[in-house]
């Protein structure tokens, strides 16, 4: 039985990797590939970040430092190859260099900042972030200010016939690194160090009384997390052939925090989920609406208030039901559908309202929401969407209580099963 299950897992793995390998044949446009590459890079970054936030319980506002500075180092190496300083350096090992830079920086900054935990730690990281961002603009010789640095990745010796000119070669490079580093980070969570990270997160004092220097655990977690962030930064630099000061900034740190948190910090797969969905949203929403940062903020706040375990948490919540009594899921289906409809109502009403308000600031009176063109001069439209929003709120409230009642019943049912 157990081995069957294990094989099943393996098949799934292979299927997944197979799909990922064939993705460039499905989506040939360079934009889609760039997007996949970005996702790959951010998956590494956010899983690395979650090593700190989710696994060790350290909130950092400065993780972009390792991402960005490793990116700068890599781009310098890349232009070193461009300028024939070390023409035989293969590009696919640049992430190793980035990882090393990240590790070194994490080692030093981690030594200073892991003396503290909680809010104090968060603020030290914020201080470092602001410091480094300011320095990137001041030390022009290394950072080249806000212009950042450009390099050409089609350069040096072509190992294995890879030139990295076409985007899909970069895709495979990133895919390889993504699988490789996520796998290592996953395995790390299974080691004594990984377990003790969780232990330190849950209860420092107890961790000391099973013989561990908690500071050392935090320091190690910090350095290793910075190391993987560095590898991600390096890949970022290869993907865009450019690195700029915004990649070390607070905004970048905030982005990875959003990804990890919305995806779910409590689960190893959460940040992956977060990185994929937020990268996608980021690209698509910013194309559709100017108010996308507002929607981002609202989603984030709602996740914190109502789903602190993130998207992964919402899905994994059903784990006990599926494990014990999958038939109960049917009971949940109807409330879920209603809840979904209510949310849809609210989203449509609210976003249209926001777009209407937004349009008042521009000189156009006609705007497009959800494929319909409406005019912000029409009073009825306003009333309609206000009503829709209110309706949505009421429906959400009501179906939330309903769903919760059914949910509680289901959980109660399962608990009864436990006792028997």
């Amino acid at each position, binding site marked *: 039985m157990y081995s069957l*299950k294990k094989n*099943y*897992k393996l098949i*799934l793995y292979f299927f*997944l990797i197979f*799909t990922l390998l064939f993705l460039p044949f*499905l*989506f040939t*446009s*360079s*934009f*889609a590939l*760039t*997007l996949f590459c*970005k996702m790959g890079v951010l998956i590494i970054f956010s899983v690395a970040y979650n090593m700190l936030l989710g696994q060790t319980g350290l909130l950092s506002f400065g993780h972009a430092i390792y991402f960005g500075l490793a990116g700068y180092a890599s781009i310098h190496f890349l232009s070193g190859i461009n300028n024939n300083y070390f023409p035989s350096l293969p590009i696919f090992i640049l992430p190793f260099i980035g990882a090393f830079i990240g590790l070194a920086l994490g080692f030093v900054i981690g030594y200073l900042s892991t003396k503290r935990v909680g809010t104090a730690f968060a603020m030290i990281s914020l201080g470092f972030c602001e410091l480094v961002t*300011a320095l990137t*603009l*001041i030390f*022009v010789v290394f950072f*080249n*200010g*806000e*212009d*950042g640095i*450009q390099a*050409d990745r*089609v350069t040096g010796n072509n190992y294995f016939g890879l030139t990295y*000119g076409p*985007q899909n070669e970069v895709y495979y490079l990133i895919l390889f690194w993504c699988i490789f580093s996520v796998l290592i980070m996953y395995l790390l969570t299974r080691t004594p160090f990984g377990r003790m990270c969780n232990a330190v997160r849950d209860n420092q004092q107890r961790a000391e009384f099973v013989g561990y220097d908690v500071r050392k655990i935090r320091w190690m977690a910090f350095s290793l997390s910075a190391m993987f962030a560095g590898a991600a930064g390096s890949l*970022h630099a290869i993907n*865009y*052939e*450019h*690195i*700029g000061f*915004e*990649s070390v900034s607070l*905004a970048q740190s905030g982005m990875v925090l959003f990804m990890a948190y919305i995806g779910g910090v409590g689960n*190893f*797969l959460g940040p*992956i*989920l977060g990185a*994929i*969905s937020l990268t*996608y949203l980021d*690209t*698509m929403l*910013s*194309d559709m609406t*100017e*108010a*996308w*940062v507002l929607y981002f903020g609202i989603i984030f706040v709602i996740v914190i208030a109502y789903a602190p375990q993130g998207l*992964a948490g919402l*899905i*994994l919540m*059903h*784990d006990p039901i*599926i494990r014990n009594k999958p038939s109960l899921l049917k009971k949940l289906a109807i409330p879920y559908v209603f809840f979904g409809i209510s949310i849809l109502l609210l989203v449509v009403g609210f976003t249209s309202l926001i777009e209407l308000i937004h349009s008042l600031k521009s*000189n156009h009176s006609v705007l497009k929401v959800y494929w319909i063109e409406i005019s912000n001069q029409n009073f009825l439209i306003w009333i309609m969407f206000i009503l829709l929003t209110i309706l949505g709120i009421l429906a959400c409230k009501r179906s939330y209580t309903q769903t919760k009642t059914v949910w509680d019943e289901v959980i109660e049912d399962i608990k009864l099963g436990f006792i028997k």
Partner: protein
Amino acid sequence: MQKFKILLITLFGFIYLTACEKKESTGPIKIAAIEPLSGPYAAVGKDIIDTVTYSASVINKNGGINGRMIEIVPMDNAMKAEKTTELLRKAIDDGIRFITQGGGSSHALNIIKQLEKYNSRNPGKEVLFLNNSAVTTSFTNEDCTFFHFRFDSNVDMKVAGLVSHMSKDNSVKKVYLFNQNYVYGQTFRKTATRMLEKNAPRIKIVGDELIQPFGKVQDFNPYITKIKLSGADTVLTGNWGPDAYRFVNALKDSGLKVKLFGIYISQPAGMAAMGKNLLFNDVVVVKEFNPTNSNAPSWYKEFEKGHIEATGWTPDADRMRFMFEMFKSAIEKSNSFEPKDIAYALEGMEGKSIDGGKVVMRADDHQIHFDMQALLLSEKQEQSILYRNQDFDMSYVNVGNIPMEDITLDTSCEMKRP
């Protein structure tokens, strides 16, 4: 087990969503305008998009170009370099062959470098970059490429214009350089020092300050104290945004009388924050035209009127207008919509200025050259500056013409033509 289901669900959902990509369309000439439309720099991007869109619509109103209309596709890069790269690739995927951009030199550089690689790897599918406002000098020097055309004067030219005007102003004796500490400000400072020494040796540089850029400095009093103690009578500054208007306001509060020479001090987006404080000290800027010139020819008056109607503000730059006009002439001249042919036609092309001055695209480095005007900000003359439905009751007064020769500089560009 569950974990894999999550992965699969996401993956397929995502594949489905991405599959709904747009298909290329023919018909209008699409020009992607990549600017920041959200985040702290959104105002800059919106202003550029407004003028670009309006200028293109004027071309369309007059029958388009060889029967085809121009369609501006605004794209939001949120002032992030990586987004610019993504959007550029997206634009190329969508079959767009022309890019225009201006907000943020780092983004322009990004586009130039990306296109340089793309164009050399994809002959026959080249993409042309019409740079409307990014001013870093190197774009038309060591970083110059065939498919990049700049329709704004670069930093060196602007500084040359300022210095040229300054050298004629005998009240300027001691000048204080006040700039932002990043590539642009540093270039400004370096060029200003060099040109002042070369072209106006009688003017002494009594101070040289680089401040933390992008509005990080809240309190300008310490800097003003330094300017005051240095005994400067003029401040030469490239500052823009909050770094410019906070400085102007703080100068007014301190009562320090100095002349201000700059490029972007009087950007309309910041005027609301300064108001009449701008008039406390003489503010001199250099521009390609006078936005409040009441003697402009009637065709321009009409253009201006339309701009105000469409956007609610007086055009602050004339370059978008002649950029599209020259683009149109280039297509008509080459009788082709191919970026390569258009690029060849644009080389050396002359444009139409408002008051009969010269506008010419230098073929050597694809840098536009024009006669500049030194403008002093003053109380309202016949026509005042409008911005987003506010009337500032101020006007520009021409205090000197700077002939094109004064700002024509050597270029180190070695253009590789396909």
